[in-house]
């Protein structure tokens, strides 16, 4: 698959269809995102290392595609995208952080093993799949069995234990492609205390989970980034399921579909909401 992708990218660069291709560059076992503009460099292109290309660049809080687009306005940019990359692209375009019109998405799927590592429910690009097969994803969090059996009090104790491990490294937020706010509520001193450990339970972790209730693209970056191994996405899975059930909406599946929480222009499933309250 790697050779096929390299050939395809070479063609794209040669035919000047794109200005360059954003992908992962590898050298001496290190890997980092790179904007390929010369075809010779393509030998260093790699696809087996996970690096979410849409991840925002801290502390600028802007993603690479946005930076590229603002550097070369109007130019077409290629991006070698996994499922999560594509979903992040769609969600960010809805939030005005990238412009989808000038992006050539070269999608390729992950294998089952990779899907398992990220706990990814859709390990392939849904719209722009060019290379690889659609493989079955993982639709359940690895600690869901343990978590779902707990009652309310049990859940509280569970989180008290998990959250008290938190060292406030902000890794979960920094790794998240959807987190692009310039000022973050997690750092807001009005809301949570600063410079103290353990964190305030559960406000500190609530912020990101709640803000991304209908935007989380299930890339798994937050959990991968967490040095203390906090199963943050247990909550995200619950919320995403609720949103799917209520509005038949999954973030990152369709760039045209509006996020149901952030629009009141149309009325959808309104009666069902009252029953849940």
């Amino acid at each position, binding site marked *: 698959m790697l050779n096929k992708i390299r050939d395809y990218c070479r063609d794209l660069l040669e035919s000047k269809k794109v200005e360059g291709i954003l992908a992962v560059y590898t050298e001496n076992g290190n890997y980092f995102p790179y904007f390929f503009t010369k075809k010779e460099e393509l030998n260093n292109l790699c696809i087996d290392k996970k690096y979410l290309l849409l991840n925002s660049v801290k502390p600028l809080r802007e993603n690479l595609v946005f930076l590229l687009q603002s550097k070369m306005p109007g130019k077409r940019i290629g991006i070698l995208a996994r499922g999560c990359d594509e979903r992040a692209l769609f969600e960010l375009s809805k939030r005005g952080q990238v412009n989808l019109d000038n992006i050539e998405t070269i999608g390729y799927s992950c294998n089952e093993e990779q899907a398992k590592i990220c706990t990814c429910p859709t390990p392939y690009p849904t719209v722009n799949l060019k290379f690889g097969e659609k493989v079955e994803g993982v639709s359940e969090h690895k600690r869901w069995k343990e978590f779902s059996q*707990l009652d*309310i*009090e*049990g*859940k*509280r*104790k*569970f*989180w*008290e234990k998990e959250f008290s491990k938190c060292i406030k490294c902000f890794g979960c937020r920094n790794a998240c492609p959807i987190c692009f706010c310039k000022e973050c*509520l997690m750092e807001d001193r009005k*809301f949570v205390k600063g410079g103290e450990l353990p964190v*305030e*339970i*559960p*406000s500190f972790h*609530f*912020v990101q*989970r*709640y803000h991304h*209730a*209908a935007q989380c693209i299930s890339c798994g970056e937050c959990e991968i980034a967490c040095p203390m191994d906090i199963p943050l996405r*247990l*909550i995200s899975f*619950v*919320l995403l399921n*609720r*949103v799917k059930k*209520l509005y038949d909406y999954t973030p990152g599946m369709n760039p045209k579909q509006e996020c*149901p*929480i952030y629009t*009141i222009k149309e*009325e959808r499933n*309104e009666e069902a*909401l*009252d029953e*849940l*309250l």
Partner: protein
Amino acid sequence: MSKSEFEPRIVALLCNWCTYTGADLAGTARMKYPPNVRTLRVMCSGRVDPAFVIFALQNGADGVMIGGCHIGDCHYAKGNYSSRRRAVILKDTLESLGIDPRRFRLEWISASEGDKFAEVIKKFTKELKELGPNPLNKGAQDA
């Protein structure tokens, strides 16, 4: 403090046009309801950021209520719609965080429903008494 003596603290975020006026009416009509509620006026139930709810629960409230106009009667046309959409997600979030979702309520009480306001507060206080102190509030538990 024994459980029977426990008096829950309720933070009620009330919409200026309906529920706050309704609460006012309950007062002017001399209706009786428990003194456990502490009201906070916002212009619309749509103004309520879920962070306020979690903040209140974190900082000593045993229950939080959002009061808004009935669906369709919003002074700002659609504020209560977005409030309701948020509230549904918030309930799920609270539940998965191990906070009893019954500690949070979204109620539609119009300006003329002073009796409903009193009734809701009565019911909510009773329910919270049964639930006991909010475990997030360490101070209350120790005392």
